[in-house]
């Protein structure tokens, strides 16, 4: 027997680990990964591979040669960023643009702030927004889905997203009922057979992953519920006021990056509040900002901006909304 160990309690540890948490998220993304390959073919696989490899490589290079510290690229976090970044771009995005996105995500947004756990903003979202502003054309020409084995021969044809159709149509004075003929029906939107970024296409696949994360307790219900709730209420009120000018809440829920953003980005633990109350405030704020942008903003989609804006509020939210203490407080005078 060697020497006895001395340490403070507790002397047992639960089965949690950073890797366990991160790979849980990775598993949750598998249905959406498969869906995007199905709808966008091997192009989407290429985008994901480039994004993941670039993210891992940037993190490796920074840790190995700049920080000269421990290399932690196997912890799963850079892998998540890589896949999420790919989920946020169209499948025909040029390789060098993806690499720029990975650079912004990993090097600027994550490693500059101290690596995993220290970043203020969601790395994949900053990468996406940077690309959207720097490469607006490449980032907004979405290929029309061409499901594998469907026999369709629609090569390299691009089309707008449902949100884009709506925004442009409303801007030129068309009514919702006129535009709805051009919009895919809800079943199509749920399953994913419409234009958009890789991870935006199939709400069902994303929801399966989300259910898994909720089951594994990797995420909690607070942010998704308050986010979706505020979107429904916000768009619902406007829809009730004038259904010809404002489309119904269901459309907002199933289109664009809503499901992806709500369940995979707004729940990123590093960049969201710590207390349940704070999480609810975060979700409410993100929902309201999303709708403000979608309805009155310059962009058709507002999920990424909304989440990034709320990321910036997290320190304040954490300060203002503490968990409820056990027992009433008695002020000592």
């Amino acid at each position, binding site marked *: *027997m*060697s020497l*006895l*160990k*001395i*340490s*403070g*309690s*507790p*002397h*047992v*540890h*639960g089965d*949690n*680990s*950073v890797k*366990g*948490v991160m790979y849980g998220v990775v598993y949750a993304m598998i249905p959406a990964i498969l869906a995007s390959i199905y709808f966008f073919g091997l192009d989407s696989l290429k985008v994901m591979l480039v994004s993941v490899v670039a993210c891992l490589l940037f993190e490796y290079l920074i840790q190995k040669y700049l920080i000269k510290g421990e290399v*932690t690229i196997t*912890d799963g976090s850079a892998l998540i960023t890589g896949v999420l970044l790919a989920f946020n771009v169209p499948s025909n995005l040029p390789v060098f643009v993806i690499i720029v996105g990975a650079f912004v995500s990993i090097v600027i947004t994550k490693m500059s702030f*101290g*690596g*995993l*756990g*220290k970043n203020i903003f969601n790395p994949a979202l900053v990468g996406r927004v940077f690309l959207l502003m720097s490469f607006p054309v490449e980032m907004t020409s979405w290929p029309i889905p061409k499901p594998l084995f469907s026999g369709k021969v629609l090569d390299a044809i691009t089309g707008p997203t449902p949100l884009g159709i709506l925004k442009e149509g409303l801007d030129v004075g068309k009514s919702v009922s006129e535009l709805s003929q051009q919009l895919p029906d809800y079943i199509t939107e749920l399953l994913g057979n419409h234009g958009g970024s890789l991870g935006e296409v199939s709400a069902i696949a994303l929801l399966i992953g989300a259910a898994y994360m909720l089951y594994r307790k990797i995420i*909690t219900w607070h942010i998704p519920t308050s986010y979706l709730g505020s979107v429904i209420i916000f768009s619902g009120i406007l829809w009730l006021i004038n259904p010809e000018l404002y489309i119904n809440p269901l459309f907002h829920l199933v289109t664009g990056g809503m499901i992806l953003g709500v369940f995979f980005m707004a729940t990123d*633990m*590093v*960049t*969201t*509040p*710590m*207390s*349940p109350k704070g*999480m609810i405030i975060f979700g409410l704020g993100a929902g309201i900002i999303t709708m403000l942008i979608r309805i009155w903003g310059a962009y058709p989609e507002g999920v990424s901006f909304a989440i990034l804006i709320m990321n910036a509020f997290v320190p304040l939210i*954490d300060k203002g909304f*503490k*968990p*409820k*203490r*056990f*027992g*009433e*407080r*008695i002020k*000592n005078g």
Partner: protein
Amino acid sequence: MKTFKRGGVHPEENKLSENQPIEVLSVPKRVTILLGQNLGASSKPVVNKRDKVKVGQLIAKGEAFISANLHSPVSGTVLKIDDVPDQVGYNKAAIVIDVDGDEWVEGIVRSSEIAKDIKLSKEEIVKKIQEMGIVGLGGAAFPTHIKLMVPEGKVLNVLIINGVECEPYLTADHRLMLEKGEELLIGINILMKGLGVSKAIIGIESNKADAIHHLKELANNFLGIEVQSLKVKYPQGGEKQLIKALINREVPSGKLPLDVGCVVSNVGTAFAVYEAVQKNKPLIDRVVSVTGKSVRKPSNLLVRIGTPISDLIEKVEGLPEDTGKIIGGGPMMGKTMISLNAAVIKGTSGILVMREKESSRIAVKNCIRCAKCVSVCPMGLSPYLLAIYGEQERYEDAGLEDVMDCIECGSCHYICPSGRPLLDYLRVDKVRVGEIMRNR
């Protein structure tokens, strides 16, 4: 099923010794009785070197308000009164007695016949409990007689008996409930009389179904004692959590159970009270679980206070080859021991032998802000933040964030995926905040 609401974790239960009946450990050759083994002030020795003592003889007196009497658990000669290392390695004043035979003082009833009639009055009960040196046997060793002295103006309506034993591995209370059920119910009746309450609730976690069943049946013959099954959740044995679980009252920050109309006592304590009041027997022995995954014979032993830990280990067929850590108490709140030479004290509920491979902490990583520590904290604190304050020595801020409410249950460190030593930082916070408060 009832439980407390906020926070909590469910570590592997590992109740390896739950089916082992309590065995009496033979009297050791030498005992070491620490003078400061109860919460509060140390006891003052009333014997000298070379004095002959008998089993049950008063050897140190609790003179301060919060203090307890100590009695010799053996008969023999006082070898020395000197500083010796305690279980965690600090030098503490102790009375060391060399054992000679097993001669008891007169007046202690040693038969196991159950004495049901409570003859003493309320005041006499409190006095007897104080005289017999009874302290809480759940671990904190708070002198029991103080709990029975209810200050004027406080309304008390229920006695809560802690049979939760939420610490993994430990089974001493479980066995006591099974084997000494009637005695401990009489003990509860005595405590009720001492407090002047007509109702008592025993809280037991549902993983001890046999004990719940047994005590429920016995309780039919006792007035005002209710047995309540609780969902298994750590730290339900925490006083505040148990009160919340059983009667849905929250003890305010910095206040006592008395402030919400109840007093909490452990099942082991209730049994000791029975022996003190009905059998005139001071607190000189207790049940200790000796357990661990590699321990050859996990056991529950009735041992005299002051027995060297090595005697207990010998009884379970020695220290396993792969031992890495020895803990006094359970794995969540117990303290690591520096050697086997230290002695059993009144608060020793178990000796846990951990394997080498279970003994190391996982590597510490950055906080990933997963908020698990916040969600498991039973006191509603923000352990991640308090740990940051500890790291940055911002103790004023830690105080403002209510670090003093921390009950040191360790759930935060247990759950942290980054293996951050959150409770280590919180303990430092608490010491420093305590200093700041005293200096004010």
